[in-house]
């Protein structure tokens, strides 16, 4: 069993709020510099930059979990990860179907572009990616599970766009593979406030929007190797594997 450092929450240039510096090349370079073993690519409501980052990371021996930060109808942010590009594409279709037809205004919200390994723009997303999907958190969680993905409500302790801010509290029967905490709290502090969540798995990511922030928060994952299946087992605490802050 090995321990890996995983920054599971990183935005790219595709997120309107993501810096133009967040190209696949820069993200990979910065993660390696920060001695991160695994990165999660989680743009707002789009998976379209994942493949480029994964291909670039592959050359450098860095692991990428390809995912997305979904905005639910309740405006709760949730991370989801999928094992293969095929499945990722299926979930992209779901996102395209349920993201409202509101156009992005780059001057107001920022550019939403996909870039290749040479930082050439290959796609510009016309729809505003920070809108909420038309489906609620429970329906979206179900869709993620049906695609064998991992579902992780994001920064649940935060006063904005979190399960707690939008829906008042974390439903005890919530189906989730883990809960993400921001850097503003510790697991101990959080479960002291919400003792019924003590058995949940907690992860942390940097929520980086610019290269400097990559790796400033991460999860330590003990598992056999970096495969998606091992990650799943680690989140469930199976066979001595674990994810901790």
């Amino acid at each position, binding site marked *: 069993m090995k321990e890996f450092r995983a920054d599971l929450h990183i935005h790219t240039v595709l997120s309107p709020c993501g810096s133009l510096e967040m190209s696949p090349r820069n993200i990979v370079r910065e993660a390696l510099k920060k001695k991160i073993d695994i990165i999660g690519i989680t743009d707002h409501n789009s998976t379209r930059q994942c493949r480029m980052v994964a291909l670039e990371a592959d050359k450098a021996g860095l692991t990428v979990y390809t995912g997305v930060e979904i905005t639910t109808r309740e405006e709760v942010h949730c991370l989801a990860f999928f094992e293969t590009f095929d499945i990722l594409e299926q979930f992209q279709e779901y996102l395209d179907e349920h993201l409202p037809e509101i156009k992005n205004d780059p001057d107001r919200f920022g550019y939403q572009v996909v870039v290749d390994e040479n930082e050439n723009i290959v796609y510009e997303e016309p729809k505003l990616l920070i809108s909420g999907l038309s489906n*609620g*958190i429970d329906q979206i969680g179900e869709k993620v599970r049906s695609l064998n993905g991992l579902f992780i409500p994001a920064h649940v302790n935060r*006063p904005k766009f979190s399960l*707690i*801010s*939008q*829906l*008042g*509290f974390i*439903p005890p029967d919530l189906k989730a593979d883990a809960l993400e905490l921001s850097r503003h709290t510790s697991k101990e502090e959080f479960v002291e406030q919400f003792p019924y969540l003590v058995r949940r798995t907690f992860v942390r990511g940097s929520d980086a929007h610019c290269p400097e922030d990559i790796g400033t928060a991460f999860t330590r994952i003990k598992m056999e190797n970096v495969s998606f299946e091992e990650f799943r087992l680690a989140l469930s605490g199976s066979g001595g594997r674990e994810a901790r802050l």
Partner: protein
Amino acid sequence: MKIKDIAEKLNLRIVSGANGLDREVINGYSSDLLSDVMGSAQAGELWITLQTHKNVMAIASLKDLAGIILVKGFKPDPDMEEQSNEEDITVLVTDDDTFTINGKLYKLLKG
């Protein structure tokens, strides 16, 4: 004023929790952030929202709210509807948006 009188006067559809129709409404509260409702709503208030998650019922019950109006024709999620029936807290639906139904309710309760 009772929930059933408000439902009738404002032409609201009763979706679930019909056993709660006799609850007395003392005021209204409008918010879509459940954390805000948990912190600020008062017992006996009628809650106007577009949220349809089952947490709505948990908070309505915790705060002893008189009932819920869903705006813009939104329907409660199945488990929210179920819990409304269990808790006897009525869920009403209007096609109006929040501003419009707020105005109507305000006029009715305070006008």
